[in-house]
């Protein structure tokens, strides 16, 4: 039924699809057979996947957020404070962090989403700085520049995730869950509505799609995913501090999304997988690594605007468009 086959999947031939799924499965399973360092990288990658997928949801609506790390921070600090001051366990405190972030995103989004393009970027950047400064300043509750340490590991139903290997399982499940969520949204009317709003907001609005509500929903959802990532990150690393959530971190998320692919549901995963382990490849040559990031960003923007996820190439993309 051609009308309803509007999914954003790639028109790759079946054998290539199988190969990619196999590669993904292999990559997912490998860390359990490798050393603790690989597991550490794998955990960080999964957390980045979750957070960048949140950014992807916001980007899909046509807005680029340069303050994403701030929402990670609110989720992290929110869940830590709920655990510490209200004595809540892992899951309730994580949900508290996500809920607080959702409320903040709702309030902020209601006033800033009407801004377009670079203005939205600048205002999210300003918000990110504001959050960071507030965290630095509020030492009575936030611990100031030192942050909060001694955070207990995550535990669910009696199982404590205090080893890298076990936490990796949790992180992997959540990361893959976020990809599945994005894929599900992309197939549903809500996902199609997001695309419509991004491509032609006036036309979308005139067909009954309330641009404000749809953008707000996507923005809150994206920030909620970031918050979940923050809450998990706090439990894994064991501490939170304001400098873990500054503008460079937000820029890092954008780089992952752009390189992975802003239009694909796999963009966050690919971007995080490619960029998180990279510092290891560069073995301490930090400057060279950053030059590589900068150059990769410019090259991708110029030659592969759909990101690495768009790699099947322009002719495949045209086939996909025509099968819609």
């Amino acid at each position, binding site marked *: 039924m051609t009308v309803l086959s509007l999914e954003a999947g790639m028109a790759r031939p079946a054998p290539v699809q199988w190969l990619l799924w196999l590669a993904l499965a292999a990559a997912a399973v490998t860390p359990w057979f490798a050393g603790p360092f690989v597991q550490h990288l794998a955990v960080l990658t999964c957390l980045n996947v979750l957070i960048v997928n949140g950014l992807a949801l916001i980007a899909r609506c046509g807005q*680029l957020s340069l303050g994403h790390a701030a929402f990670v921070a609110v989720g992290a600090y929110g869940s830590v404070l709920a655990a510490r001051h209200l004595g809540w366990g892992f899951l309730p405190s994580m949900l508290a962090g996500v809920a607080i972030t959702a409320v903040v995103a709702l309030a902020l989004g209601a*006033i*800033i989403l009407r*801004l377009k*393009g*670079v*203005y939205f*970027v*600048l*205002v999210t*950047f*300003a*918000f990110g*700085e*504001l959050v960071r*400064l*507030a965290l*630095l*300043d509020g030492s009575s509750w936030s611990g100031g520049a030192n942050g909060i340490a001694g955070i207990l590991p995550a535990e669910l139903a009696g199982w404590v995730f205090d080893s890298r290997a076990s936490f990796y399982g949790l992180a992997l499940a959540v990361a893959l869950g976020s990809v599945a969520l994005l894929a599900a949204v992309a197939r549903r009317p809500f996902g199609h509505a997001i695309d419509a709003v991004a491509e032609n907001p006036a036309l979308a609005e005139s067909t009954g799609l309330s641009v404000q509500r749809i953008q707000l929903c996507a923005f809150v959802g994206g920030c909620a995913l970031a918050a979940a990532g923050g809450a998990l990150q706090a439990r894994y690393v064991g501490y939170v501090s304001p400098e873990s959530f500054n503008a460079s971190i937000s*820029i890092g998320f*954008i*780089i992952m999304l*752009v390189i992975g692919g802003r239009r694909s549901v796999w963009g966050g995963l690919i971007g995080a997988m490619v960029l998180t382990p990279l510092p290891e490849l560069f073995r301490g040559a*930090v*400057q*060279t690594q*950053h*030059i590589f*990031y*900068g*150059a*990769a*960003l*410019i090259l991708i*923007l*110029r030659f592969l*605007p759909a990101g690495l996820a768009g790699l099947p190439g322009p002719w495949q993309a045209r086939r996909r468009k025509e099968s819609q």
Partner: protein
Amino acid sequence: MDWSILLAQATINGLIVGLLYLLMAVGFTLVFGVMRMVNFAHGEFYMLGAFGAYYLTTQAGLTFLPAVALTFALAVAGGAVLEWGVLKPFRRDELNGMIATIGLAMILQNLALMSFGPDPLSMPAVAQGTARMGKLVVPLSRVYVVLFALLALALLYGFLKHSRPGRALRAVVEDFEIAAIQGIRSRIYYPLGFGLGVGLAAVAGALMAPLFSVSPFVGATPLLKAFIVVILGGLGSIPGAAVAGLALGLAESYGSLLFESSTADMLIFAIVIVMLVVRPKGLLGRGEA
């Protein structure tokens, strides 16, 4: 506690810092006006300007003013080449252009780190001694910096107001479409606009090099200030950037008398957010929205 002296001192400090902000912001808004590009690499050109002044005075033996002038020329040329070579595909492509400048900033900063190392260098003062104006004391080096900054601004003003390329550039900034219709060849004005814009950032960096230290990390704060000023003054409005730059410098200076720095910083960001939401065209209302 003689408040009048404190206030006068704060005014002078505020004006000095305000001039720096003005130079950064005018350059930044020029780039945005011509190319619709939020130039995240603007701070790195400030940083390169500072290094330029440092090396030209300490290694090449130039005196300060010629060093600044040469730094400016090199920055304009370098900026024009970079625009033409790297940023051309992103002209007037707001979001992608902005992301591309993020990449450019990373490249420039890390090239500087690799070439100069992370440690801050201090440049010899432009002049020794102090000047006295009544009860006020101002270091002579600062006075010189202010004079040179005003000279640069006068030259800029003259260029924009009275020269043909300058007027054409202003036309492109004010209304791109009309300028194109009038036959102004934007192919020249993209590299020129970008070059001039980052050249101003380099001049700001060169002028401030003797007053603050020189290191690959000095670009971040001026970039931040440029953002704030340009938002307050209106993206794309040169007069707005000038007025808001001086206003911010003075406000920060007076603010430091009254508030703790962290509160003042947060207040500024809160004001920026409110400005963007309520009046995106900026204070003077001549910017774009």
